[in-house]
């Protein structure tokens, strides 16, 4: 997978530098009046720049993916195996569905 970095709309960017101040890893700088992710390897995609950008020029979209069937985690389910004649329950086992 490619390193994820925020998308900067240079038309909307006013070069105010709020993203530079907020970025916890110093991955962004303002160059020629526009925000640029200059150290993409340092970007952790924390989305702080998107949250603080007053011009809404930075977007951090998430891809929403479902694992293919068969590779998904299975939730353990506890099932009781019925009652005995005296009213007590038989052993409860944990199964995976």
């Amino acid at each position, binding site marked *: *997978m490619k*390193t*994820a970095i925020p998308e900067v709309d240079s038309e909307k960017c006013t070069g105010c530098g709020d993203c530079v101040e907020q970025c916890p890893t110093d991955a962004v700088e303002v160059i020629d009046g526009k925000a640029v992710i200059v150290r993409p390897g340092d970007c952790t*995609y924390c*989305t702080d720049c*998107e*949250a603080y950008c007053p011009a809404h020029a930075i*977007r*951090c*979209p*998430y*891809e*929403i*993916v*479902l*694992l*293919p069937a068969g590779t*998904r*985690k*299975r*939730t353990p389910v506890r099932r009781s195996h019925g009652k005995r004649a005296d009213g007590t329950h038989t052993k409860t086992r944990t199964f995976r*569905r």
Partner: protein
Amino acid sequence: MPPTINFLKSLPYFAALRPATLDNIARTATELSFARGEVVILEGEPCRGLYIVRMGRVRIFKSSAEGREQVLYIAGPGDTFNDVPVFDDGANPASASALEPATIYLIPRQTMTYLATDSQTAQAIIKVFATRLRHLTTIAEDLSFRSVPSRLAKLLLKLAVVEGGEAPIPQLTQDEMAAMVGSVRDVVGRSLRTMTGMGVIEIKGKRITITDPDKLKDIS
């Protein structure tokens, strides 16, 4: 370019109409193009007509005075929007903006009100309105009875696709998710972190992977 007769015929509103009538409708239509994020219509403005999406996806939403948004639905190819003011003569009830580059046809209000005099088309219009009403009832139910994590879980389950499949992978920012579940970014961020802690989803870089859909269904 005007819409083709075949395209118009594929829409519920016009399915029962004759080719000659469809040809007349096509002549009154205007093709409009929008870039991603561009506003198509604004809530409260006078209605110009019915909009039909030819290509791309359009977000139909309401805005609060504080700038919060609630997405009512996403219109894709073949879907219509701004249907209500076409028939009640009022202002646009919601705003619309392009989620991605979009081509949209605008059918003038007068064309639609004239078509509504035909009983078969009127029935088709009622059907579209009934579907819309059902959808809005579900939104009202979700907003009234479900918590934000529950609404977010429902949204993730609805949108998620298996990688490599036919459907494109949806891409949404936290603000966009908030607008779709009637909440704010911070609450969506917290809910995503909680779900990660529960082992229901995994967030790596820009990817949210649903690792335990059964458990996510329990939350929704």
